[in-house]
């Protein structure tokens, strides 16, 4: 039956995770409720707000628009995998210093999406940053402090 669980193996933040999931289980629900990685937030479940953005196979993806089975065999990175033993990343520190987060609900998605932009475009311009951010909704800050923070890292 289509609802029968299937086995998947996903490498999440560097660690192999095996589980049985029903084919319709969303990747966002798999990460949050099966793996307990609740840093990936769900803001709309239709791919617009960007809060659930994670990396799948190195590229940003909306975890609410993917099924967990689609991540089988893939590498997934979530917000929990960003900070290392040396503490926060430069982008996390910049958001802190620029007051680029208030409630923090959209922040994980922004960290992933902005991290991807800076990897592809290390010297991204303000306009490029704003264009990337237009896929991530923040309702608290009015965005300026977020753009400032990302620009600070891009200019570093």
């Amino acid at each position, binding site marked *: 039956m289509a609802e029968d669980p299937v086995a998947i193996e996903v490498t999440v933040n560097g660690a192999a995770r095996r589980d049985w999931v*029903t084919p*319709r*289980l969303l990747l966002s629900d798999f990460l*949050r409720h099966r793996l307990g*990685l*609740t*840093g*990936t*937030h*769900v*803001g*709309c*479940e*239709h791919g*617009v*707000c960007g*809060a659930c953005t994670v990396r799948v196979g190195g590229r940003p993806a909306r975890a609410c628009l993917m099924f967990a089975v689609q991540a089988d065999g893939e590498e997934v990175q*979530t*917000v*929990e995998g*960003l*900070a290392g033993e040396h503490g*926060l990343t430069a982008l*996390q520190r910049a*958001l*802190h*210093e620029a*007051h680029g*987060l*208030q*409630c*923090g*609900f*959209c*922040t*994980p998605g922004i*960290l992933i999406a902005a991290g991807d932009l800076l990897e592809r475009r290390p010297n991204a311009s303000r306009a490029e*940053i*704003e*264009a990337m*951010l*237009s*896929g*991530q*909704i*923040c*309702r*608290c*800050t*009015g*965005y*300026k*402090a*977020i*753009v400032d923070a990302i620009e600070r890292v891009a200019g570093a």
Partner: protein
Amino acid sequence: MLRVEDEALLRGRGRFLDDLDPVPGAHQAAILRSTHAHARVRRLDVEAARHHPGVTGVLTGAEVQAASRPFPAACDSPIPYYAAAAEVTRFVGEPLAVVVATDRYLAEDALELIEVDYEPLDPVLDPHVATLVTERDFVYGEPDGAFAAAAVTVSGHFRFPAWTGLPMECYAVVADWASGEDRLTAWSNFQGPFTLHSVAAAALQLPGSRLRLITPPHSGGSFGIKSGVFVYVVLLGLASRKLRVPVRWTEDRLEHLAASQAATIRTTDIAGAFAADGELLGVRIDAIDDVGAYVRAPEPATMFRMHSALAGAYRVRNLALRARVVLTNRCPSGLNRGFGGPQHYLPLEGLMALAARRLQIDPLELARRNLVRELPYRTPSGGLYCTGDFAACLDDAERLVRYQDRLRERDRAHAQGRLVGVGLACVVEPSISNMGYVTLVEDEETRARSLPKSGNAEGATLTINPLGGISVQVSTTPQGQGHATVVAQVVADVFGVTPGDVTVVTETDTAQSAWTIASGNYSSRFSGAGVGAVIGAAGAVAEKLRAIAGAQLDADPAEVELRDGQARLRSDPDAAISLRRLAGMAHWNPDGLPTGMDPGLAATVYYSAPEVTPARDNDISASSENGFVVDIAVVEVDRETGRVSVLDYVSVHDAGRLLNPLLAEGQVLGGFAHGFGSAMQERTAYGPGGELLTATLKDYLCPTAADIPDVRTAHRETPSPLTPLGARGLGEGTTMSAPAALHNAVLDALGRDAPVPLPLTPANVWELLR
């Protein structure tokens, strides 16, 4: 100081309610919602759903109404309001039944098996023909005389459209009804006001002590809207009671856009009587608030929140207000950032812009001639503007925007056929609401039959543990504003320690926290009332520490200062005891405390703001403090498309002393984003049959980073004598001012003599250009 909240949030270790399992074994709920704006429910068949695999059970609207009382509100309503509809449904998205299952996916499957037989009824969406809930007339001074004496009368019809706060995190509730005890424990991302705890308890017919409401460490924004989650505390509580399992529910975005809480839609006819020199002699306001399908507490409060600032920043004393509140077949309204302010200032400041055109007086000059000049100033309707210099703020804004240059640029652009405009808004921003203002809905005689109301108090508890660590618990239910940072900062100052030495607990638990009916996070009350309670509790414990140290050091406690983690003598800094040792002494040896001192190093203190009294006749001081905001917008309208671009925007505030300038800037820019969105692009749209047209974020257009223009801010910090640290609220001012300033700029760009309909979307503006 940077925020203490950030580390956990940046690491993805926030603790939002959907991240938590506060009670083991909770089942998952999904809610069946009305697809009609107005319909009789002929039949609701839940049998198939009830027997679906994994389903625990179903609670119907009829069962909800049998098991609960209607939610009380400040005025009688012809239509009782329950947590779910039974015989008649009155808005799209209204709950009809709750399915509870072992898993959310199964609960949603079962929803599809419920059969509903609707008999559609005519929906009412026009406030002018809608059911009238209440009507009151207010007159101050002699408005008739003012209009008779006027050289020029200016009027306009304004509508503040439907929009919503749209936090990124939706509602969430976990409800655990203790069978046999009649006791409900509910976790929810509620934001207050805690009056709504009483409203929920009344609906459940529980004494307040049997409704234990707990908020999680983090809440993903609210902007007022999460006040409305109390409806679901009741709904899920009843589901838990019936099915005898803990029940959890996290709202999805479609549910949120359809049915959480709307901003009040206000239709205003406003008229101003002006002397030839521009003096505003009188104002008449005829306002209708559309609160949606039911009067949901704290409505009809939107109508009265700005009542003591009826004339805004102007000294006119002849005022008339006709206030009507009506019901339509839309989502019920409630708190929303600015609450009544955007709806009030769009017509008032719009009137000033129209008058400036008619009188051919520059808008800044017209404002300057009419601004309140000498503070303190008692408004005609009972408010107090305590300190500040309104004209100086206007001067600051004029300089900051380079006003004369902007006018020249505008005129040059006009000569080239381009549509550039400049718009002004002057806004009095109330903070620390007096909950008594909602009683203005009643006449004096009716009001006298119930308790006088001036609720505004806040509580806080400060504790020092045996090792000298300081903990503070507040009931201000923050959703991102950085309350923990400010509390750590002010408490550290009192005890002479670093903010890192202070642990701030922002989870509120009605069974444990120090709260009052007015607690919560609204009306920009934290910096005054919340901090007031914290300062009080810190001061009480610090005084105790000084007394203990004084006894130990054989000195007058007044000689003891708390600095660098020590209590020491001002005259002899070497005579010192560490805070840790003092705490240990107090905990371990009550016998050694100074004679007469109670043991324990803790204090719970409540703070109530000055200048907050119950309504008298038609007068109310609706808030303790009033700040001042001046915004100037420069826009260009594209002739071909109607698109409005913001070329420059300045916002000048007098919010008193800024407790944390970084957080203050965040509040101003965030408040602007809300005001900008409501003015420019957001709208909750309904079709002619009341069907919701904006059910996703692709239809409800929240501003993105590419939409929001740069805003230049400045502050004039006149300390408030009414709050403990001289601060005024500032979280809502720009949400109130931005729609008016942007409207007035577009009005100027188009050279119109009648208001421009909001939102200022290309389609709406283009219609006017045709």
